[in-house]
């Protein structure tokens, strides 16, 4: 069924590792470690549920050994997921989705958006300053023209955005940008770019939110009007 020694599949609940039953345990262990090494930096500090499928039944000790090996490589806490995903047992007969380490990291990133760490800045971000975050960015102050914010997650500015902001910089299209006054030089979410209209349109004073819908960036007020 599976030609590769080890295949990974990611679910909301965690990761399922498909093992090739023709291989010895030692070989499997090497393959599993190798596979996880590719997405190594990403899982830092997270807790990852890992389940195993496909191979002949291994002993509890052997499962634990694999889990320990994964934990060591990833620098994260892996826990054994028993009876992984019985729900779509049916579809498992198909070839599991084949993902590169990078794609996996990206997918997992989306799942863990809520848990991702956030950087806080309590000053005005000025021209020439670049803030980067692997997670979210929150600025309590303004983002002046010439300044740049780049976050793999969301960007929230408690003030006016006039500089360039890039949310979901690693390809996360679910990311959002919100600010009290959103008039950026350029606004990017994942791979979609937009800019403020050329005419000096006066924005309302209401806070706004930017998000992707149908491959385009939409900007709208995010507070419901009071009735």
């Amino acid at each position: 069924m599976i030609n590769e020694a080890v295949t990974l599949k990611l679910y909301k609940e965690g990761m399922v590792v498909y093992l090739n039953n023709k291989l010895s345990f030692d070989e499997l262990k090497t393959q599993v470690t190798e596979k996880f090494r590719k997405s190594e930096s990403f899982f830092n500090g997270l807790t990852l549920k890992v389940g195993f499928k496909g191979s002949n039944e291994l002993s509890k000790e052997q499962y634990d050994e694999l889990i320990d090996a994964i934990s060591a490589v990833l620098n994260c806490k892996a826990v054994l997921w028993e009876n992984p995903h019985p729900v779509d047992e049916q579809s498992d007969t198909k070839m599991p989705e084949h993902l590169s380490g990078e794609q996996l990291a990206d997918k997992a990133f989306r799942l863990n958006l809520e848990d991702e760490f956030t950087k806080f800045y309590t000053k005005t971000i000025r021209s020439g300053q670049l803030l980067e975050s692997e997670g979210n960015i929150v600025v309590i102050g303004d983002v002046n023209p010439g300044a740049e914010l780049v976050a793999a997650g969301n960007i929230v500015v408690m003030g006016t955005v006039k500089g360039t902001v890039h949310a979901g910089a690693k390809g996360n299209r679910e990311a959002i940008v919100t600010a009290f006054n959103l008039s950026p030089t350029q606004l990017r979410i994942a791979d979609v770019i937009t800019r403020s209209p050329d005419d000096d349109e006066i924005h309302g004073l209401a806070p706004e939110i930017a998000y992707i819908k149908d491959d385009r960036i939409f900007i709208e007020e995010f507070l419901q009007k009071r009735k």
Partner: protein
Amino acid sequence: MSQVIVVTSGKGGVGKTTTTANLGVGLSKLGKKVVLIDTDIGLRNLDVVLGLENRIVYDLVDVVTGVCTPKQAAIKDKRFDGLFLIPAAQTKDKDSVTIEQMQDLCEKLKEDYDFIIIDCPAGIEQGFKNAIAGADKALIVTTPEVSAVRDADRIIGLLEANEIEEHYLIINRIRPDMVRRGDMMNVDDIIDILNIDLIGIVPDDQDIIISTNKGEPAVVNPKSLAGQGYRNITERLNGNNVPLMDLEGNTFLGKLKKLFTKKQ
């Protein structure tokens, strides 16, 4: 307690040197002992603005390399007691001075002077880094132009990164008539963007050009509007809280307008 103040802007031509000269003269007239340092090595101007060009023997590079003492290099002003100038070298470049040398110099000068005012070159390279190295506070000069404000913003960021937290804004060359018509950024617009404290505004004034060319700073001219602006800033630097200059002036229309705006 003596203060080391750097006058900077990022953008060129906004009036750093003129401001330095006028503040130096203004403070010395208040009875303070002031030394001005021109750090724009290779493009020195401050000596010309002060009319002291022909008295230069030693310069800043001579001082920091130990060729002479700071006292020897400091040129005493011909008109104002208590005002001294350490000129920039004209034949060297900005790498001739290091950050440590500037810090040492500022520490030494603090013993002898009440105010040490450093005229910073335009740009954000070595010359800028040298100029801010020994400073306790910074005066950022900007004009009501988008590009000047943008550069000022960059400079404030760099000052904060270099732990000079005390910085004030001087808005130079503001034209009340254009502001009134809405053709020029007004004071509030600029402060809104830069988000720092204002220490003074200096209106655009033809007298500045005349006085600069003559080597006589406008601050001593009682009729000059710009001179009034600089006098106010010197008072504030000296710790006296004087009200901000009234840009509407004493024109009839100005008074009328104020009358109406107050009622609202």
